[in-house]
């Protein structure tokens, strides 16, 4: 088995992982912060592999592999960039707005130590959503520069 077979095998594993994540994103009404980060990480991972492989692979010698790369590229473009990514941006924006509104409406008088520390967990979740939104917006900026 030569090096290109190893790379091809690795690419198949990674692109399959990505397709599973994309299918989860399509079927689930709302993704958790962890799922969002995992999906974007895999998108970036596979996209980097594609960019590198397209420069290195001989079109005539490894046509099947190149077809697979182009198929994965199309999935990223049509399923993720055009559909899932805008939905995630919207989901995060709405969720941040709702959580912010809820936290602002909580009566701050007469709270026990436990109430305050439980409420602090909601703030932690809000901060996680906000930093995820920043991360997703960075991806979006990358798309608009492509």
């Amino acid at each position: 088995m030569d090096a290109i077979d190893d790379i091809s095998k690795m690419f198949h594993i990674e692109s399959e992982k990505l397709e599973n994540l994309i299918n989860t994103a399509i079927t689930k009404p709302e993704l958790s912060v962890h799922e969002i980060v995992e999906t974007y990480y895999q998108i970036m991972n596979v996209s980097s592999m594609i960019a590198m492989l397209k420069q290195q692979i001989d079109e005539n010698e490894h046509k099947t592999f190149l077809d697979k790369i182009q198929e994965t590229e199309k999935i990223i473009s049509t399923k993720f960039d055009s559909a899932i990514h805008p939905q995630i941006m919207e989901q995060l924006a709405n969720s941040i707005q709702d959580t912010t509104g809820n936290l602002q409406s909580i009566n701050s008088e007469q709270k026990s130590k436990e109430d305050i520390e439980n409420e602090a967990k909601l703030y932690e979740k809000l901060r996680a959503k906000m930093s995820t939104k920043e991360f997703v917006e960075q991806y979006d900026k990358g798309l608009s520069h492509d």
Partner: protein
Amino acid sequence: MIEKLTQNLVNLKKEFVSVYDGNSQIQEVIPVSKSELFPIERQDLELLHQFATKNPIYYNSYEKIIGDIHCIVYEGDINKYWLNSIQHGSSHAPFSPTWIMSAYVGALFAKELGYAEVIDIGSGDGRIAFCAKVLDMESYSIELDDMLVDLQKLLCTILDFNPYCSDAGIFDYSLLNLKQPIFFIGGLAQMGGISLASDILKKIDTMYDLWNNSGWVFAGTLSQKYAPDPKNEAGWGTLIEKNNLKSIQSISLPTAWTFHEPDDTPYVFAQSI
């Protein structure tokens, strides 16, 4: 004395971190009484405790011996202030306080350096300005967030540290009739601090008599999360050089945001060349 006091406070923080088992968002300690390690006047310590007791960000307190020091632990939550502060378009950094003891040590050092007035920029709950007042310096507190300024007004019933609700970048400092001021800049260099400090430096530069007499204190970071400044000074080196300032000394002090970090916050003291 400052170096020793600073080191003792850092050691106390380390000891506190190792024994703290609570769940509060922020937590800090203040020694109960004057000691060899903390040779602070009784009336000053009492005022620091009053600041914490009256301050609504703290919801719990208890006594604890940490190392050999009898302390009061204050547990607090700043979430609602954080939420309010991030909604200001020109807010450079969300509210996160230094320790009250660190504010006191910072103000004490400013006094030892000969400064007469402390201007606490992006002052949060105004603790640095408060501590300067405890040390009989004149002090002013500039804060953009109205909710935090309301909180400061409540704390001003202990000692009036002159809070102003204003954008520090456009505030008219000539109103304060300053003679020998030192400006404490809230916010890390990498979190909007550079822009905030540059605006204020520019303003003071136009007040010719004041520029040579002014001191500057920048809250830095050694965290690898942030890209280092090529001129160092915990993120402030380039700004210091560009504005013809020189760094006098840096002291590391505990802050809410470094509670779980091995390195404390370096406060870089600088003045004009």
